[in-house]
């Protein structure tokens, strides 16, 4: 770098005879937009995957801007054939910036080197983008008066950034998602590079190989745009159909709240937990049959259900004096209290004086807690798609739960879909029976989920309740009766007992749901 200390003259450039300034100014606009998009992609991706968005955005923006400074400084060492260098830089930005989102997703899913790659990518793109503008200005310096040049280039640079910063959250993220946005803007950058081979053809010299390179870069990115969906599925990185309004990676799970089409949805590890459009069906069915079967319930336990929606239903029963909610994840219960959409939906249920929130693994809590027994327990865990969740559907868990119930206590258990995962559903029934419960299975349709199933169970004999609370949105006495009738395609099938030392439910569940994905 030090072999040319004096700052060389750019005297080797041929006269800029038929160079068109206006199209080159337009390319500044596009370049600026692309540059900002890469920065936003990196910031969003890191907040999304690592949580703590303030830290992620600050560091990404800081590193990106300083890398641009580095690029600008390095530009003084670029002497020969500025036009060719400009095109090459464009293609490099296209490639590095365009593939950044898919590569970072892959790195996160498959390697341990996400952060080095993230900042490496931010530095690379920042440096290249930092090189672009000074070089372009030097190409144009003989064409345009210096004061106009600076004014136009910087104006368009900032306007481009404005376009990008508005497009990204309003249109690109919701409609295209991170991976396709990144690839699409890489493609745009590549096209600017290719376009440059025509705009600057008098200065570039040999163009065939350069254009071939450009075409290859664009073809690769185009291919990526079309394959993006398959790719994101392949790295198990679901593309949310709607706008993400909240995303948090807790030590236990990835919590994502999305909003769109007049409702909002909660996802845990990419699995839909509820949609505000029809969650009332699900939660009324989980809560009210059990409380109808034990009309004078005082103490109610809710396992899982950190969203507070089941608690909201429980609190509709004035005779309930105390609700203990045991949910693993403090992020989840904190979100239920403070996230405005969710708080509105659950009516601030978790701040009701009757409610006590415990952040603990229900499995461990049940072995350690020795409080007064409960009248009713509502078990609202995510489906058993992992061993960690599967343990919450074992005889061990149900026996521990039975130990915390009054002799005539009653429980309701969400038990996945009897239609989509029939074997799994009846495995839950068999396991409850093996744990000493009398079981009454029931189900209803929740449009977001499909046909959904529950178990009503008690250590003692009990009848299906006839009367539910009046004034509910879905549940009536007739609707409740109907839930306990099973049509032929969901009727009981023989199933093994799910135990800690066999975890047959996880295997059955994974096998059955694979057919529908």
């Amino acid at each position, binding site marked *: 770098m030090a072999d040319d200390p004096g700052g060389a003259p750019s005297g080797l450039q041929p006269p800029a005879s038929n160079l068109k300034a206006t199209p080159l100014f337009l390319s500044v606009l596009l370049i600026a937009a692309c540059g900002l998009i890469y920065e936003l992609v990196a910031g969003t991706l890191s907040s999304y*995957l*690592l*949580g*703590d968005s303030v*830290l992620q955005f*600050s*560091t990404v923006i*800081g*590193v990106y801007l*300083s*890398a641009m400074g580095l690029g600008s400084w390095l530009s003084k060492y670029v002497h020969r054939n500025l036009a060719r260098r400009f095109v090459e830089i464009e293609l490099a930005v296209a490639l590095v910036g365009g593939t950044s989102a898919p590569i970072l997703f892959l790195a996160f*899913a*498959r*390697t*341990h*080197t*996400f*952060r*080095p790659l993230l*900042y*490496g990518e*931010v*530095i690379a793109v920042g440096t290249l983008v930092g090189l672009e503008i000074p070089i372009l200005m030097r190409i144009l310096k003989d064409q345009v008066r210096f004061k106009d040049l600076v004014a136009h280039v910087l104006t368009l640079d900032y306007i481009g950034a404005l376009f990008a910063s508005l497009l990204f959250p309003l249109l690109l993220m919701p409609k295209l998602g991170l991976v396709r946005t990144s690839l699409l803007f890489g493609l745009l950058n590549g096209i600017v590079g290719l376009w440059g081979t025509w705009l600057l053809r008098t200065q570039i010299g040999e163009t065939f190989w350069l254009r071939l390179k450009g075409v290859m870069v664009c073809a690769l990115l185009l291919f990526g745009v079309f394959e993006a969906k398959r790719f994101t599925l392949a790295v198990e990185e679901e593309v949310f159909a709607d706008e993400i309004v909240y995303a948090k*990676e*807790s*030590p*236990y799970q990835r919590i994502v709240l999305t909003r769109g089409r007049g409702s909002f949805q909660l996802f845990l590890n990419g699995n839909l937990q509820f949609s505000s459009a029809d969650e009332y069906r699900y939660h009324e069915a989980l809560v009210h049959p059990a409380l109808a079967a034990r009309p004078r319930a005082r103490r109610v336990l809710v396992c899982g259900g950190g969203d507070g929606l089941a608690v909201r239903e429980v609190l509709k029963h004035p005779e309930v004096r105390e609700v203990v909610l045991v949910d*693993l994840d403090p992020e989840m219960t904190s979100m239920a209290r403070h996230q405005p959409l969710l708080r509105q939906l659950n009516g601030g249920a978790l701040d009701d004086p009757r409610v006590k929130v415990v952040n603990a*693994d229900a*499995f*461990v809590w049940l*072995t350690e807690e020795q409080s007064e027994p409960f009248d009713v327990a509502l078990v609202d865990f995510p489906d058993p798609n*992992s*061993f*960690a969740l*599967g*343990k919450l559907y*074992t*005889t*061990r868990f149900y*026996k521990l739960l039975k130990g915390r119930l009054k002799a005539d206590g009653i429980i309701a258990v969400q038990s996945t879909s009897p239609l989509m995962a029939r074997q799994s559903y009846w495995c839950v029934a068999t396991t409850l029976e093996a744990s000493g419960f009398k079981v009454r299975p029931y189900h209803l349709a929740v449009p977001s989920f499909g046909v959904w199933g529950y178990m009503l169970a008690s250590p003692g004999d009990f009848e299906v309740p006839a009367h539910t609370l009046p004034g509910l949105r879905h549940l009536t006495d007739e609707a409740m009766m109907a839930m306990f009738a099973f049509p032929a395609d969901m009727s009981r099938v023989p199933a093994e007992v799910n*135990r*800690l*030392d*066999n*975890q047959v439910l*996880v295997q059955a569940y994974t096998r059955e749901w694979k057919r529908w994905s």
Partner: protein
Amino acid sequence: MNGDGRMKRRTFLALSAAASVACRRRPGFEASLIAPDMATGHRLRQGGLPEPDRWEDVPILIVGGGIAGLSAAWQLDRLGLREHLILELEPAAGGTARGSRNGISPHPLGAHYLPAPPREHADLVELLGETGAIESFGPDGEPRYAEHMLVREPEERIFAGGQWWEGLYFHAGANGEDLRQLKRFQAEVDRLAAWRDGKGRPAFGLPRSRGSDAPEVRALDGVTLADWCNGHGLTSPRLRWMLDYACRDDYGLRLDETSAWAGLFYFAARQQGPHDRSRPILTWPNGNGFLVEHLARQAGHRLRTGHAVASLRTTSTGVEARVLEVATGRMLGFRARRAIFAGPLHLAGAVVEGLKADRGSSLEAFHRSPWLVVNLTLRKRPREVGFPMAWDNVIRDSPSLGYVVATHQRGLDAGPTVWTWYHPFTGEEKAERARLLAMDAPACAEMALADLERAHPEIRELVARVDVARWGHAMVRPRPGFCWSEALVRARQPFGPIHFAHTELSGLALFEEAFDHGLRAAREVNALYRSGSRST
């Protein structure tokens, strides 16, 4: 916060300014040696200890509070001989079956599981019944074990080709021949498990005293497991890796050093019949420390820890023991009618006066593998690729045995945990022992971390503390010819009023064997003590 501070130092330097924003400094961790008490052993070997200033009389003295000694005491109680004392050198009973605990979790320091015994093993079933490990008995009389004490699924996984896979046998990428050989091996084990001799005994029993001594069974002890495999055309690298792992795991030996009898014992003795490949396994967060604690509770004040027996001498009326009380440095004397020596036999040679002269060569036939057990307390779990964390986690391309997760059995699937990492030293015994004992706690921690880095590159960033157990004589080595040797038979014989109980006397280091020898020695003492009582 999630994900902070995960970078390696090199990368950190390479990315200097940019990365420093996101990266925390690598936190240090404390590493300490927690077992065994080497200083006291050293002090005893130096000699020059004074005579005891007071003597205590006790009918039966048990030297060593490991599984064999504790089991002997348990059996003496069952026989109504409640007047006995157990002297244990270490501050806690249990020997290599000890557990420990810290703020995060109880964890093992050595042996950590027990195959759930069938009803035939009535003594052990009775012991387990006392601990609450048996919920009920089936109509066939088979015990039904408590669900939370049986290993929770997933039981084991293997790290190979950059990710984790289910099970111990590396199935992914196995070709047809590999799988055929695996099947053939399993068929051979099934055949051995179903085999009965003329007296109806199985080829391999647990404990081994229940098994057959027929010539065709004993003949297996004449060759190595590697030779046996060669003879059966079992050449698949995947299968041989698994068998080698089993040898290292149970005996601290390699495939080509282990007696075929001992190697096949590992597989066939746990099966009741050909269709019983998955004998359930009992385990606890503190490993076999759970059983130690139960036995120690039964012994109560009769168990005296921190009591190092310097010498055991036969007298006209029984035995005299000279004992160093570790905490005070005082010498205590004990006179007993009978003694059970329940320590390893190299210590018997040093402690029991006249034993070396009488049966030195048989004592020298015993060889033992040193083991290093490192407990790593993690602030949080590493990110991983592939099959989720299991109870037992094995790294294929590693000389270690991998690690067990102490919090697995409690159902803690996220957050801080303790991993117990095992490494057997399989090389030449004396050199390996010297190598192990030369390592201080940080060196032991480094060995574990360097090994775990193969599968968990970020492991160093997650470690909060490290507790090390260096077992110089952890496991007796069943080399060919040893398990059915005269030396082994000879070593089981009482030496005057002194009886012997230790898993080494089976040539195999297993809970069931230690338990069996404890019970046998107690019965020997019972028979002689009662007949002696009548004559005096």
